[in-house]
């Protein structure tokens, strides 16, 4: 099989790049990125070929555990996620080529980058539990080491520590999941698992474990706490990979277990992913709207998108359990397309944030502003990403969200009362999330790129090197193209959908043009992206022309209206916090017990007035801080046991012996 050999060679090249980067220093480290880009291209090409031809490649290697060996398999599902992963790696590598060879390369980042890339590809190729968990752990550890690369920063260390703990919990859960799937016979190859679906109770436990394992990696509430700390702490191109791509590997893991290995679904399997996903979507954006750190906002938005994808996966499970294959295909296509689209626009946004960070040295929104004049290209690309993330037509984010809403609208047809009645609530929560996403990105873009600079650094910013512009430009192009060609992408998914839900999109190609995306009925549920794009273009161009006609002929630049206060400070502009205030008042009180306090000095006193907001993260308090305190308290109590006298240790041993003997005497 030449394809798998090509993939193997590319993975070998990544491993060689990692080893090479540990041996050299200085400018030679820059060679890592072209090598990674080439490897990603090769891997992506193989994936694309497998996806388009709908073939399935398998390979068994005699390495790994004795008697099990190493099973590799590239089926359409792996190939699809491989395209997602390698697209992200390619963009991040091209971005990396723009780094300053003298200053920006360190041996803390460059050797780990190809390792991280190779590990994510290996997870997709694995066809037995051992290979899967091994590469999953490799992926976790490589990304952890990248998070801790800036270890001088205590925030970074804290994030890395939390990430390590959560990754360990997630892997342990996956270990249980595969243990349940392997059954008493211990068949750890995925083929054996497929042949022997577990008992219903075991299947439920496996599903829960998979949800914990993959959900903690993807950032599903309440396992999300590490994500907004760890993703922004890494270097920006790695943040793009972690947020845009690694979360997709987590989703791949869930799809692989829930749709492929676990056998025919029961309808109630759909409830946990749907409910948690909807909660994640809304809560993620509520965090995002209130946060003031550019990269952290993007990480919270990732949490929201993972929630959206989980909702779609849950709907697909519900439809499939009820034998509604058409609707299942729509929901599944929504999940997969959203994974692809999110990987593009989130990578773009993180690379844009990296460009801003590089140009200004700041991530706090309230220290930015006016960048559209100083970094025009980055600003344009970031705008495309922000529009796509807000799911506005004709960009790619809208395509998958539209498909998801079609699936939600079809959900009341489900016979089970729980799903039946939950579907309007889910639809409402998703709609709220979509609206909050728009608000969130208006806020981010408006504060960072519009207005006047709020700091000296922002005022002196300049655009980034060409390679980094190419990386962002390519992704922005993909976001636009993915929006226009949504129907083509959905058709290309047919082999994956056939494997997972028993058939592709039912009415693909029945619309008026090739570019019409049809969900169920060509008469009612059609999204015709090029037509809409044309309409948007015509409408905005007409408006532009009319406005220019009606206005004065020449554009003049003059001072902005200053409300009668000459020379105002940039601090008088809308800030990120003030923009979020209405949303904080509406939702913050319920979600975060937000309390605002205003301290006004008495009249005549020249002290400044103080305004402060206190937010409480209930999830953190209940599920992270409280157990942490309990463990700490218990260990402090038990600590005394380490400082007893010899005689007391002997007494303890003797007591244990006597008690055990007494038990033996009583029970035998």
């Amino acid at each position, binding site marked *: 099989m030449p394809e798998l050999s090509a993939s193997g060679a590319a993975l070998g090249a990544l491993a060689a790049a990692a080893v090479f980067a540990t041996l050299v220093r200085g400018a030679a480290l820059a060679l890592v990125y072209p090598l990674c880009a080439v490897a990603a291209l090769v891997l992506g090409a193989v994936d694309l070929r497998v996806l388009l031809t709908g073939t399935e490649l398998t390979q068994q290697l005699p390495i790994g555990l004795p008697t099990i060996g190493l099973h590799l398999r590239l089926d359409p599902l792996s190939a699809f996620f491989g395209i997602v992963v390698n697209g992200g790696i390619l963009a991040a590598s091209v971005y990396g080529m723009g780094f300053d060879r003298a200053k920006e390369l360190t041996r803390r980042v460059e050797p780990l980058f190809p390792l991280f890339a190779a590990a994510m590809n290996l997870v997709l190729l694995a066809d037995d539990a051992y290979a899967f968990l091994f590469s999953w752990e490799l992926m976790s550890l490589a990304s952890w080491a990248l998070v801790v690369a800036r270890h001088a920063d205590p925030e970074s260390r804290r994030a890395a520590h939390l990430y390590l703990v959560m990754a360990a919990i997630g892997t342990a859960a996956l270990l249980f999941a595969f243990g349940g799937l392997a059954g008493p016979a211990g068949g750890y190859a995925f083929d054996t698992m497929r042949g022997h679906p577990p008992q219903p109770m075991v299947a439920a436990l496996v599903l829960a474990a998979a949800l914990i394992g993959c959900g903690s990696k993807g950032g599903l509430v309440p396992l999300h706490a590490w994500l907004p700390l760890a993703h922004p702490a890494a270097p920006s191109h790695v943040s793009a990979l972690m947020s845009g791509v690694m979360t997709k590997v987590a989703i791949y893991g869930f799809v692989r277990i829930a749709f492929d290995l676990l056998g025919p679904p029961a309808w109630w399997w759909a409830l946990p992913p749907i409910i948690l996903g909807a909660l994640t979507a809304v809560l993620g954006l509520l965090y995002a709207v209130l946060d003031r750190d550019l990269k952290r906002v993007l990480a919270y938005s990732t949490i929201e998108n993972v929630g959206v994808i989980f909702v779609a996966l849950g709907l697909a499970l519900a439809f499939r359990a009820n034998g509604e294959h058409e609707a299942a295909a729509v929901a599944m296509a929504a999940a997969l397309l959203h994974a692809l689209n999110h990987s593009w626009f989130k990578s773009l946004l993180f690379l844009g944030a990296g460009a801003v960070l590089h140009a200004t040295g700041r991530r706090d929104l309230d220290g930015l502003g006016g960048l559209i004049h100083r970094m025009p290209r980055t600003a344009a690309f970031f705008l495309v990403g922000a529009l796509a993330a807000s799911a506005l037509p004709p960009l790619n984010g809208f395509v998958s969200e539209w498909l998801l809403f079609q699936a939600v609208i079809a959900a009341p047809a489900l016979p089970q009362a729980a799903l039946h009645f939950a579907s309007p609530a889910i639809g409402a929560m998703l709609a709220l999330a979509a609206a909050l996403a728009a608000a969130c990105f208006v806020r981010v873009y408006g504060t960072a790129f519009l207005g006047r600079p709020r700091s000296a650094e922002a005022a002196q910013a300049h655009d980034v090197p060409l390679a980094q512009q190419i990386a962002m430009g390519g992704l922005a192009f993909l976001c636009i193209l993915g929006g226009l060609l949504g129907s083509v992408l959905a058709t290309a998914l047919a082999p994956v959908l056939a494997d997972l839900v028993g058939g592709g999109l039912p009415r693909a190609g029945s619309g008026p043009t090739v570019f019409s995306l049809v969900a169920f009925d060509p008469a009612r549920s059609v999204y015709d992206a090029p037509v809409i794009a044309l309409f948007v273009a015509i409408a905005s161009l007409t408006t532009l022309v009319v406005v220019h006609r009606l206005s004065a002929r020449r554009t003049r630049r003059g001072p902005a209206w200053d409300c009668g206060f000459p020379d105002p400070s940039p601090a008088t502009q809308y800030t990120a916090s003030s923009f979020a205030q209405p949303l904080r008042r509406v939702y913050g009180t319920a979600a975060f017990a937000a309390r605002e306090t205003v301290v006004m000095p008495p009249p005549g006193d020249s002290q400044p007035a103080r305004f402060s907001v206190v937010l409480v993260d209930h999830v953190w308090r209940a599920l992270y801080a409280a157990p942490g305190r309990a463990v700490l308290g218990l260990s402090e109590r038990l600590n005394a046991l380490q400082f007893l006298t010899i*005689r007391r240790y002997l007494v303890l041993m003797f007591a244990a012996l006597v008690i055990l003997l007494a038990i033996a005497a009583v029970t035998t």
Partner: protein
Amino acid sequence: MNQAYEISHLLSGAMLVTSFALLYQQRVAAVLNAFAAQSIVLALAVAWAAWSSNRPDLFITALIAFTLKGIVIPVALRRTVTRLGIHREVEKVVGVGAALLVGLALTGLAQALVVKVASGTASHAREELALALAIILLGFLMMIVRRNAVTQIVGFMSMENGLILAATGARGMPLVVEVSVAFSVLIALFVFAVFVFRIRERFDTVDIEALDRMRGDRR
């Protein structure tokens, strides 16, 4: 044949009595005497088992027990005690009465346990085993109710006596194992001895409570 078991039970019973005697001795010298008595009775019991069941290798075990634990170790410990000047009253953690009551309960436990666990074996072997287990438990008890390092050594050696007795009752324990057990006990004894001297050098006493006081630990 019955007579052989009667005599071996008599000797094992005598060892158990000396174990109780160890528990209530007030002075270090008396503790050492009781220990020597127990070791000599052990040697007799082992020798009787060797003679009655015709296993001549057990005579070597008996000889080791007699010379090493019946004579050499008690004499050595006695000389140490005189040299260190600690042949006075032994401090106890719990009173004699309570210690004896606990010892009685342990003996009962050993009896009950062996009756339950070894119900398949012959009754004489079972009783032998029960007595040995009781001696082991009493040795352990001795280690934790006394505060003196020398008496802890004696408690440890008394446990080892119980082990030898059990091994004699259980047929087929090879001599190599016994020799190695005896050897390891000897090593442990050396360690204890060095330990005792170190305590003495530093704190002018062998009361192990001094270690706790040094560490700032309150009782």
